[in-house]
């Protein structure tokens, strides 16, 4: 897609969708049938996808708001004010001057080089990553791996996409999944053929300048029998967005004996509502791991789910959330044990500071015939001050008598004695607190690839210094 003259991109236009080559760059505000048809037409989608979107739109309209999470914020969403589709090339036309000062300052303090900052802010493409991307692309293509943005995936592998798209998270799953299904754009399509092991983690980052950094990303990962892959989503710089609603849908399918790890570190700007539906299906002997880090945003509601549908399937959800001033992180996990000898481990860690609120919301369900299922849930909350808050809403529905269930929840405060001990070794009060926080999230950080671990530690340090965003 050619980048258009950035000067054409100011203002708001409304054009007919029939003229594909016109200078339409974004849909008008609000979502109705016209807009949905427009999005689908611009992308040149097959008819079944248009029907899928239109059905989803109906479901979105009929579906009430969730009554949990944070009602007050959810009820405040004005769906008519949102622009649902912006053409990717146009996003790249954003100028550096338009990027908010707060974001620039953050980049500054992160010590990110100028070129990279512009790239992270969506201002320009990063050529180095393009090169990296191509060499990886060559290598994995030889193995038959398909790694594309979702739109290209739909174009180039219509049968695969049609067969699996929306099967893990049907469009009527919840209001935001419906919304995504109607308005989705961008995201990743990844297919790993039978028996193929992708050795290096695949990062959306590698193809970010081709990515539509959409608010309604749609990702589908399919790991065929006996294959394995690690996918990493999101860059760790504050995702700059002028839009305030993000409702992504991520579907994972791990066939017999396959293994998928999906790592996310997200750091949204403070105005964003991040309402994401993530779900995986793990077949016989398959393993799915969600590694999920949530920073920033005003409200995040995210509960990565795993359906263990085949015997001996394994699932793991490892997450951290950091809630600062004015933020609510409502995160957790859902695991359904629908087959015998399935195993799940949920580890959730949250940090609240400056009146921030972190909630753990979890559901574990064990079906009557899931004999020998093993469940282990551990949630730890760390409060940095009196004004902050943490809640846990764990739900267990165990219908099988011989399942083994472990549940543990702790809430701790950063202790005076810990701070005193560290300070007596020369650390400042801030360093001492940061050290304790870093120690608290260590079990999470050590699961991350090196560069993300370093990055996450940097972000936490910034959060703790109190003036990000």
């Amino acid at each position: 897609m050619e980048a258009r003259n950035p000067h054409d991109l100011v203002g708001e236009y409304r054009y007919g969708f029939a003229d594909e080559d016109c200078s339409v760059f974004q849909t008008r505000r609000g979502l109705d049938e016209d807009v949905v048809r427009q999005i689908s037409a611009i992308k040149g989608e097959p008819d079944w996808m248009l029907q899928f979107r239109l059905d989803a739109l109906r479901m979105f309209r009929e579906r009430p708001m969730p009554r949990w999470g944070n009602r007050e914020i959810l009820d405040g969403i004005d769906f008519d004010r949102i622009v649902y589709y912006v053409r990717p090339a146009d996003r790249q036309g954003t100028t550096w001057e338009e990027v908010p000062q707060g974001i620039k300052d953050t980049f500054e303090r992160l010590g990110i080089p100028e070129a990279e900052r512009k790239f992270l802010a969506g201002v320009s493409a990063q050529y180095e990553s393009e090169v990296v991307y191509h060499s990886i692309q060559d290598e994995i293509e030889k193995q038959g791996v398909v790694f594309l943005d979702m739109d290209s995936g739909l174009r180039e592998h219509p049968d695969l996409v049609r067969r699996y798209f929306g099967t893990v998270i049907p469009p009527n799953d919840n209001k935001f999944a419906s919304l995504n299904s109607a308005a989705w754009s961008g995201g990743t399509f990844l297919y790993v053929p039978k028996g193929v092991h992708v050795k290096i983690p695949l990062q959306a980052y590698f193809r970010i300048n081709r990515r539509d950094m959409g608010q309604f990303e749609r990702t589908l990962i399919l790991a065929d029998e006996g294959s394995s892959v690690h996918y990493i989503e999101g860059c760790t710089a504050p995702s700059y967005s002028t839009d305030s609603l993000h409702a992504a849908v991520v579907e994972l399918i791990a066939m017999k004996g396959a293994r998928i790890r999906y790592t996310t570190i997200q750091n949204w700007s403070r105005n964003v509502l991040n309402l994401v539906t993530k779900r995986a299906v793990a077949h016989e002997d398959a393993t799915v791991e969600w590694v999920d880090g949530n920073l920033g945003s005003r409200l995040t509601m995210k509960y990565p789910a795993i359906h263990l549908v085949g015997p001996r399937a394994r699932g793991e959800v490892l997450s951290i959330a950091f809630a600062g001033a004015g933020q609510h992180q409502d995160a957790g996990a859902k695991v359904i044990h629908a087959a015998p000898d399935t195993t799940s481990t949920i580890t959730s860690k949250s940090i609240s500071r400056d009146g921030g609120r972190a909630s753990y919301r979890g559901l574990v369900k064990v079906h009557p015939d899931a004999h020998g299922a093993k469940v282990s849930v551990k949630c730890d909350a760390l409060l940095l001050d009196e004004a902050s808050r943490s809640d846990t809403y764990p739900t267990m529905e165990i219908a099988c008598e011989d399942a083994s269930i472990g549940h543990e929840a702790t809430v701790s405060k950063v202790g005076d004695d810990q701070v005193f001990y560290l300070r007596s070794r020369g650390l400042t009060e801030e360093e001492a607190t940061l050290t304790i926080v870093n120690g608290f999230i260590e079990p999470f950080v050590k699961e991350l690839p090196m560069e993300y671990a370093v990055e996450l530690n940097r972000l936490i340090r910034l959060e703790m210094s109190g003036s990000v965003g």
Partner: protein
Amino acid sequence: MSGEAAEGAAPILEVRDLWAGTGGKTILKGVDLVVRPGEVHAIMGRNGSGKSTLTHVLMGHPAYEVQGGEVRFLGRNLLEMDVTQRARAGLFLAFQYPVAVPGVPVSSFLRTALRSVKGRDVPAREFRRTLQAAFADLGIPDAFASRYLNDGFSGGEKKRLEVLQLRLLEPTLALLDETDSGLDIDALKTVSGGIARSIEAGVSVVLVTHYQRILQYVTPHVVHVFLDGRIVRTGGAELARELESRGYDWLDAPPGTAASGPAGA
């Protein structure tokens, strides 16, 4: 009394009539203590008499408020300094009960501590060598470098790590709060050896202890008896032996006479 290391030299620590407590309760009731360069002071006294409180107050624990008196450290007003400043100025506390900080590996903590106290960053290789030597010196297995700070450590392991920090950070004055408690016979020897080497290297020491044993390895210049929030008696090494055989009861002087210095000896 054994040979005074630096008779007449300017004191490192001067505590004058120190009163302190917490939550409206007074625990320290007029402590006087003067430590000169190179000296080793032992403090002995009953459980709950306020010995740990004294070390905490000197290090600046926020739980205690100072109600009166004066403390000078290397000529500076210690009570005006925050905890970090005290550590950086050369004051060290080996804790009676070191706290655990889960998730923080010992090696990275030690490196941070070294950088913070000494203000210089040791290159990674040099640091590893230093650490290995120090570990070997205190009989700590290398595997402890990657364990989390005091997390799941046995009592004796914690004490060894406290002394390791003493060795590494080379303070001017070390407050050692029952660093000899809870150690087996071999561990006591190793730990005492570490303390003795620090003293040889010039560190002045205030050693809180219940036992005479450690004093066989670390010879005190002065022994103080601490009762009910203050020092009630001061003597030489022989005082420790006397306490060991006689206990503290004979020191419980009638009210009004206890604070009047080296009475009766």
